[in-house]
């Protein structure tokens, strides 16, 4: 009887060790599908990066040779450099403002039960759903009316641009902060209070460290979205001032040399580096 049981165990072990043909085909198909999707996503990126190093002015395949001259052209181009600086300023300011609004909002949504909680949550995510052109137009119209009503120089000001960009940051920050809050046991905050921590200390010492990955990821994504925004900014920048995406668009109206590709590569490298550096301190993968 024991021998029979042992045999059976051996058989089942063997089965587990060597999956049957169907399972193996399934695994292969899954890997192939994953590789295909990844390739589909990466292909344009790879092409842009490749293009940035072409020597000739008119992009054509195969390349006549390789060169770094387009990167020099980017740095020498005043409107690219000015656009980059403006985008950087606006992105950072909008991210800070967006976070200052999104973190308290997320805490309220994630921790408290109040009437209209679902509606508030949806409202905060709305800017993600409304097409950029629509958002840009409506903010533009609003700013005209606001300027007429108050007499302040709102239209085309950096402050107004920052305010609009904060709107793009908020949904990302809210989404990611509420996500990190969802996995956090409210009893932990109660434990802190029970041990003598007042609400502010509880937030600083217990809640904040717990939602930090969400905040960092929200800031990063919000910044990237603001930095790359074109449609809305088109309506809102002042005369003679451009953000980087607008500078790139304007350049493309006249030329299609690889300078634009080089600018994109620099942008990709910058954002990629920011993500890698951030990931060293906070595991973004935990929340995204």
């Amino acid at each position, binding site marked *: 009887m024991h021998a029979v049981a042992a045999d059976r165990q051996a058989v089942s072990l063997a089965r587990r060790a060597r999956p049957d043909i169907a399972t193996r085909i399934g695994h292969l198909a899954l890997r192939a599908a994953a590789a295909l999707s990844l390739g589909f996503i990466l292909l344009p990126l790879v092409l842009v990066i490749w293009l940035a190093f072409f020597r000739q002015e008119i992009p054509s395949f195969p390349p006549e040779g390789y060169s770094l001259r387009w990167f020099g052209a980017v740095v020498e181009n005043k409107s690219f450099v000015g656009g980059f600086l403006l985008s950087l300023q606006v992105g950072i300011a909008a991210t800070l403002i967006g976070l200052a609004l999104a973190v308290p909002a997320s805490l309220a949504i994630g921790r408290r039960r109040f009437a209209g909680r679902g509606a508030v949550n949806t409202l905060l995510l709305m800017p993600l759903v409304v097409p950029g052109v629509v958002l840009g137009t409506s903010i533009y119209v609003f700013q005209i009316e606001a300027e007429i009503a108050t007499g302040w120089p709102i239209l085309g000001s950096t402050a107004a641009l920052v305010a609009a960009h904060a709107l793009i940051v908020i949904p990302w920050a809210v989404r990611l902060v509420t996500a990190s809050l969802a996995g956090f046991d409210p009893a932990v905050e109660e434990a802190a209070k029970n*041990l003598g921590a007042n609400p502010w200390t509880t937030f600083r010492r217990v809640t904040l*460290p717990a939602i930090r990955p969400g905040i960092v990821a929200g800031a990063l994504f919000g910044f990237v979205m603001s930095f790359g925004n074109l449609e809305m900014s088109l309506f809102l920048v002042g005369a003679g001032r451009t953000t980087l995406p607008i500078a790139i668009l304007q350049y493309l109206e006249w030329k299609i040399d690889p300078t634009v590709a080089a600018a994109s590569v620099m942008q990709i490298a910058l954002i990629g580096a920011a993500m890698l550096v951030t990931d060293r301190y906070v595991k973004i993968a935990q929340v995204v």
Partner: protein
Amino acid sequence: MARLELLGLSKRYGDHYAVKSVNLEVSDGEFVVLLGPSGCGKTTTLRMVAGFVEPSGGSARIGGVDITYLRPWRRNTGMVFQSYALFPHMSVAENVAFGLEMRRLARPEIAARAKEALRLVRLEAYAERLPRQLSGGQQQRVALARALAIRPDVLLLDEPLSNLDAKLREEVRIEIRELQRQLGLTTIMVTHDQEEALTVADRLVVMADGEIRQIGSQRDLYERPADRFVAGFVGRSTFLDGRVTAPGEFESAGGLRLKCHIDGALGPAALALRPERLTLNAAGGLDNRLPGRVEFVSYLGAVLELHVRLSPADRVIVQLPNRGEAAGPALGDTVEVGWPRDAGLVFAGQANAGATEERT
């Protein structure tokens, strides 16, 4: 360490009372367990003592000082949560030191007291670990050390063992009880597990529907339950519905005439019988002897449990101790069930009260 008094403490949500006028005194160093089914108000009561729920009425005092509306961080209570609630980003030592830091003690004293608390729960060696690197039992011991380190006036335990597996539960339970005794801590524990409650408590408080049904020792609750609910919740009882027809005479719904305890009031009533107080085919001297048919047999190791039908409407549960005899009664056997009149408890007019009782 101090005496805790709850005076008419209530919590109302709309017109529903989660806790209704709870009066309870816990003496210095006493271990009191609040026992009841889920939703009975025991956790709300505990959370009012901790300050997380604001009472709608009544008051609470610790060491004679009114704390009814004091914010949680201004009370000196030590709470242990069901989910451990350790700070995930802090080491074990930092977790235990947190409450001491909040009390602005000097660094050397914080270190010394944190170490002492960890020694009490035998986890000194784990001081530098993060909570997630510990087992559930160890995490709950850290939570206990964290609550003990602040030398609380009252220790509050909110189902502290529910997330542990059975073996560990017993270990941690004994550990909690020994520490509580050793430190002389005034303690309230909330649980729905009666075995847990019976093994640790000095005194038990049975709650149902937001109210205290009975306060007493283990023996009080078991031998003299205050009502039908307690009789069904603490230990097991079979209930026979019927009426008291004359002093000491009970007539069941199925028409059985039974002798019962003399002080039951006349009128509708329920007769509660503890399964282990009933005997089968006993030699003599019993007030009640009734023939019945065995409908269900269950071998439980220490006891043999039988369900015996006495009439179409009456069925009783009988537990026979395992004395190493050959096979006991089998399914379908006719047996004689007997019990002395004092074994039956009569609860007047409570035909359908109670949530967890066994029905016939």
